[in-house]
């Protein structure tokens, strides 16, 4: 078989194929429900209801989407430049550590000043964590996929070290957790009484900012050029190494905001299970959005909905909650295939 590009894919292809990918994912969900001895329709219904069936469910989904928007943006920005940042998990924790360091009474500032200072410092920390692998890539030719992946494990051990040592909560009854943030360092709720914090608004703003950077600035143009063809970009006088570094700062900073927002907005302290793989799920979010920053918001809400819905379905129907992980991974794989097929046709000899 051979693949031939299609210059102008028809509307049927552009809508039909992604829809088919989604249908395959739903089919997979039904199959898994059957395997678990549950009614597929009831299971799907419970997932949807658990994700969006009530005001509470919807807010829970938006809360879960918040860190995913940040990590999704981090991945989208990096992948656009073909910088394979698989280390959003590590950068997230770097942001969380800084949030705890500065938010537990180290800075005597009013909330309106303290929060931006912490957010910025968190971004710097996240950027620094990604700069290591990126400098190894640009200076020593070390593939960043493996180094960023390995950094995730190193960072998790480092967090564990901190939580059992210098950052340990003396009132924590021996649990490895940090002291709680002071009141001034907590992100308030957007509407009093509703469980949705300003981290969500910050995530939306970040998506808009990334969209502006990508479509309206020279840096955005350079990032795209480097991603499309680094050699050609170099030839055209674009400083590829420097663009990579700027991309890394942006990407690492965004991922760190996920840690900031989770600690300051939701949890109030740092534990080892702060992120159930938000960094990795961010890759799914970014790919489903075709690396478009505004699309990231929608796909993050979709992915978060699957997870929140599966949690509540699992309690009611007894299908293991890991169905959500299978479904999002399936959606990723079928969607990248569908997108490829919209732009190419298969020629059998």
């Amino acid at each position: 078989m051979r693949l031939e590009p299609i210059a102008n894919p028809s509307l049927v292809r552009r809508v039909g194929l992604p829809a088919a990918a989604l249908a395959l994912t739903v089919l997979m969900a039904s199959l898994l429900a059957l395997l678990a001895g549950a009614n597929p329709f009831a299971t799907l219904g419970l997932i949807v209801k658990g994700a969006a069936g009530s005001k509470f469910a919807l807010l829970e989904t938006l809360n879960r989407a918040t860190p995913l928007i940040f990590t999704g943006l981090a991945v989208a920005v990096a992948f656009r430049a073909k910088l394979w940042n698989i280390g959003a998990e590590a950068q997230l924790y770097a942001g969380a550590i800084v949030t705890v360091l500065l938010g537990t009474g180290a800075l005597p500032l009013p909330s309106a000043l303290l929060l931006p200072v912490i957010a910025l410092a968190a971004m710097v920390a996240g950027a620094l964590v990604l700069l290591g692998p990126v400098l190894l890539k640009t200076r020593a030719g070390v593939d960043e996929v493996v180094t960023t992946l390995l950094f995730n494990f190193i960072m998790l051990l480092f967090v564990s070290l901190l939580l059992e040592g210098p950052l340990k909560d003396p009132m924590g009854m021996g649990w490895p957790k940090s002291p709680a943030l002071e009141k001034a360092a907590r992100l308030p709720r957007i509407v009093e009484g509703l469980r949705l914090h300003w981290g969500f608004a910050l995530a939306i703003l970040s998506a808009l900012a990334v969209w502006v950077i990508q479509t309206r600035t020279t840096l955005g143009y350079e990032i795209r050029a480097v991603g499309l063809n680094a050699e050609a970009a170099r030839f055209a006088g674009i400083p590829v190494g420097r663009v990579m570094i700027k991309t890394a700062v942006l990407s690492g900073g965004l991922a760190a905001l996920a840690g900031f927002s989770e600690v300051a907005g939701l949890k109030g302290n740092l534990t080892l299970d702060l992120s159930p793989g938000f960094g990795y799920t961010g890759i799914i979010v970014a790919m489903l959005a075709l690396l478009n920053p505004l699309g990231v918001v929608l796909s993050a809400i979709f992915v978060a909905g699957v997870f929140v819905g599966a949690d509540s379905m699992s309690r009611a129907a007894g299908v293991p909650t890991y169905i959500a992980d299978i479904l999002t991974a399936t959606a990723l794989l079928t969607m990248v295939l569908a997108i490829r097929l919209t732009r190419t046709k298969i020629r059998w000899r």
Partner: protein
Amino acid sequence: MDILEIILTASFWAAAVRIASPLIFATLGELICERAGVLNLGIEGIMVIGAFTGWMTVYLGFGLWTGVLVAMLAGMLFGLVHATLTVPFGLSQHVVGLGVTLLATATAAFAYRLSLPEVTSPPKIVPFQPLPVPGLSELPLIGPAFFAQTPLTYLAFVLIAVVSVVLYRTPLGLALRAAGENPASVEAQGLSVTAMRMGAVIVGSGLMAIGGAFLTMSAFSSFFFEMVNGRGWICIALVVFGAWRPGKAALGALLFAAFDALQVRLQQTPMGAYVPYQVFLMVPYILSILALVLMSRRAEVPAALMVPFNKGER
């Protein structure tokens, strides 16, 4: 002083070889994929699925070797998914590989919960037992290290030789390497690059899964969600460290395992009292990064690694 004492014990070397075994399986698997031109980032998840299916098969009452076979087949199935998407369809090997890792890990977790809904701690199986080679196992240091291991470890070492011979001494190996260096030349020989690469990814994934199965069936006798713990990514670093050669990569795995065995033992020494244990646990990951830094400049990367092949396109 401490270090020297540790290195001179037989149990240290036995541990190093034991730790190296799963890495050897998975590193050889990854090496086969990459030699054919496909980076397989599914490795981490494929090791998880191998660890789970092998263990589950034995838990259900089948024999140990049946477990190894089932693990291999499960790995090959996910290899088929990876190969189909990356080879004929030429999708991004990064994205598909990570997708396969997430899918395989999630599948193992789902199947685990489905089959054991109530348990809090996973049941144990009777794993492979050490099978001392008569005579040779009596040798000092080398005996317990290499000749008093489980059958799966012996299999790992046999595979190093098999993979080397197939890669360098057979027409199949030549064609496989050519698919990763100069795919057009494979087509010129009348062979199919697609078939070559898909075959390599499927077989390689089978080996990765056996590496995972080693963890549950020869090392820990139980299945935990976090048990693979980055070993797959470490194996990718080992392939680079071994300059894409089976012997060197296996040697790298042994060296790496020796450091890992050493850090575990150093935790018990006075040094372990004032250095937090997490620092010791970081050692394998830091070593992997160091290995990459040291070897990346010199490495002879297969020329067509990560370059999709579309027939008739130039």
